[in-house]
C-alpha cells in the first residue's frame, strides 16, 4: 500500500507561464544569434498553440487495450473540471490583446507558429509579427495565475 495519498494536480499553468515569458524574450533576441536551450520552451508553447488551434485539449494518454480490472476494483470516475479551462481563458485573452477581437484563432495561431518556427531556424522576424508575438506571449504569461 502507498505510504500516502496525493491528489495529482491536472494542470501545467506554472510551466506555461514560465515558457511564455521565455518565448517572449526569445522574440526580442538578436537575430542570427542562436538561442541556447530554447528548444523545449518553444516546442512546448508550439504544442499548446496546436491544442488551441484544434480545440483539442484532451491530452490523456489512455493505454492498455484490455480493459482489465481486478475483482472488487469497480470504481466511480471523478469528472474534475477540465485542466485547460484557465489556460484557454488566458489564450483567448492573449489573442484579443495581441491581434484584436476580429481575428480567427486559426489565423492568429498560424502566425504565432510561424514565428516560433523562424526562431528555431534562426530566421529574421518581421516587425509586425514580432509585435504580435511579444504582446501575445507577455499577455499569456500575465493571465496565467
Amino acid at each position, binding site marked *: 500500500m502507498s505510504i500516502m495519498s496525493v491528489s495529482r494536480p491536472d494542470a501545467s499553468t506554472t510551466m506555461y507561464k514560465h515558457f511564455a515569458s521565455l518565448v517572449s524574450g526569445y522574440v526580442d533576441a538578436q537575430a542570427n544569434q542562436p538561442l541556447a536551450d530554447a528548444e*523545449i520552451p518553444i516546442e512546448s508553447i508550439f504544442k499548446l498553440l496546436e491544442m488551441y488551434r*484544434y480545440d483539442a485539449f484532451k491530452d490523456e*494518454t489512455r493505454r492498455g487495450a484490455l480493459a482489465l480490472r481486478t475483482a472488487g476494483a469497480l470504481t466511480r470516475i471523478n469528472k474534475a473540471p477540465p485542466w485547460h479551462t484557465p489556460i484557454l481563458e488566458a489564450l483567448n485573452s492573449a489573442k484579443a490583446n495581441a491581434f484584436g477581437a476580429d481575428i480567427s484563432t486559426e489565423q492568429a495561431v498560424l502566425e504565432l507558429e510561424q514565428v516560433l518556427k523562424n526562431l528555431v531556424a534562426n530566421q529574421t522576424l518581421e516587425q509586425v509579427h514580432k509585435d504580435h508575438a511579444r504582446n501575445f506571449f507577455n499577455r499569456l504569461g500575465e493571465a496565467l495565475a
Partner: protein
Amino acid sequence: MKAKDFLLNECENLQTVLEETLRYEYGIEGSRVFYEECEHRLSEITKLISVTQETAAPALSEHFYKLEELSALISRIERSSLKEYSWPFLEEFKEISLSACTDPNTTQLDKDGNPYPPQVHVLSEGGLSSYQIYVDGRRVPSRRKILTIFFPRTLKHYVLLHPILGHEMGHAIYSIAAHEKALDQVIKENLIQPSKYFASAQNFTEWMYRNPPQSVKVFLSVIEAELQVNEQNILDAYVDFAAWEEEFLCDFIGLLMFGPSFIAAISDLLYSVDSSGSEIGNFHPPTACRVNTLIEAANILGYETLKFDPDYQPVVDAFWRSIHEKKQGNEWFDVFTSDQIRETLHKLTAFLGPHENALYPTPTKERVQPLIKKLLVNIPPVGYEFSTHQVEGKSKPHLSFDENVDFRDILFAGWIATCNDVKSLKFEHANKLCEYGILQQRAIKMMQAQI
C-alpha cells in the same frame, strides 16, 4: 530539507541515473538520442523548479509530477535494454505505424525539413494485460516524442497476438492535436450522432437500462449496490463516454492497420479477460459490443468473401467460424448499423491512406494461400530455398526466396492455420513459425537492400 531543495536534489539524482544509462544500448538506434532528449527535459524541469518560490505549493506539486514522469520514462527505457521481445515483429510494426504517429506540426525538424518520427523503445513485463504503448502527453516538456511499447513477458514471442498493438497505435495517433480533431469528427459524425443508442445521454441510458441482457442487468445491479451508480448518474459517475468513443475509434484503426489478425487477437484477448463480454467499463465499452462491431467491419471490408482453392477453403472457413463464435447473438450488443460502420471505415481509410504502409491492403488468395500451405506442413511461411540447376551440363547452386511478403499476411495465415478444427496447428507452434517467417522476411529485405 525544504520541498524545493528536495526536488532539486532529486533532479541531481536523476541526472546521475541518466549518466549511467549511457553505458547501455537501448534499441537498435542506440542510446544517444534518448539520452540527449531526457537530458534536455531534465534541464528544463530543473530550471522550472529553480525559479519557483518555496511557498508556491501547487507549482512545486506540478513540477514534482513532471519529474516523476521523466523518472518513470527513464526507468522504462532502462528496462528496454534487456531486449526481451520479438524484434522482427517490432521492426515491421514500426514500418507501418511511424508515419501516422509522427506529428506533422512541430518546430523540431531534421536537416531535410521533415518532422522527426517518435523514438521507440520496447520492453516486456507482466502478463496478458501488459500490452500497451506509453505516449508522451502534449504537456510533457519535450523536443521529440518517445513511445515505449510493452509486450507481455509471458507472450513476448506470441506474434499472432501482437496485432492488438494496432489498437494502441490508435491512441498514439490520437495524441496528436490535429489528429484528435479530425478523428473526433469522423467518429461523431459517422458513428455516434447517427446511433440510436448513443446520439444523446437519454438514448444511452435507455439502451443501458430498458432491456439489456441478463448478464448486463447483473453487472448494473452490482455497480448500483457497490458504487450507487444508477440510470440518473451513470454518465457522470461511472461511464466516461468520450473515452468509449476513443476506444471504438482505436479498434477501427487496429483493424484497418492489421486486418483479420487484429480481430482474431483482440477478441481472444478481450474474452479471456471478460468471458461474458458484458462488463461495462469506465473507459471501455462492453467487449461484446466491440467484437460484434469489428466482425461486421471485417465483413464490410470483404475479408470473409476472399475465396481460396478447394484444398484450403475449409481451413479458411473454419477460421471465420471461430471468429463468428465470438459474436454475441443478443442484438443489444449490436450498437451500430452496417451503414454507420461502413461510413466510419470509409472515412478512416481516407485518413490513414496517405500514411505509408499504414493500411493493410485487402488480402488476396495469391498472397495468403502460399503462406497457409507452408504453415500447415510446419514450414515457416517465408524463407529461402537453396537448390541446384544445370548450366552447360554443370550443377550450379541456385537461391530463391519469397519477396515483399507483408507481415500482416503472415499473421493472417498464421491464424488461419492454427484457428481451425480441420488441420490443427498448435497455437504456440504457429506463433513460432510465424515469428521465424517475419524474421526471414527482415533478412530478405536486408539482402535485397545490399543487391
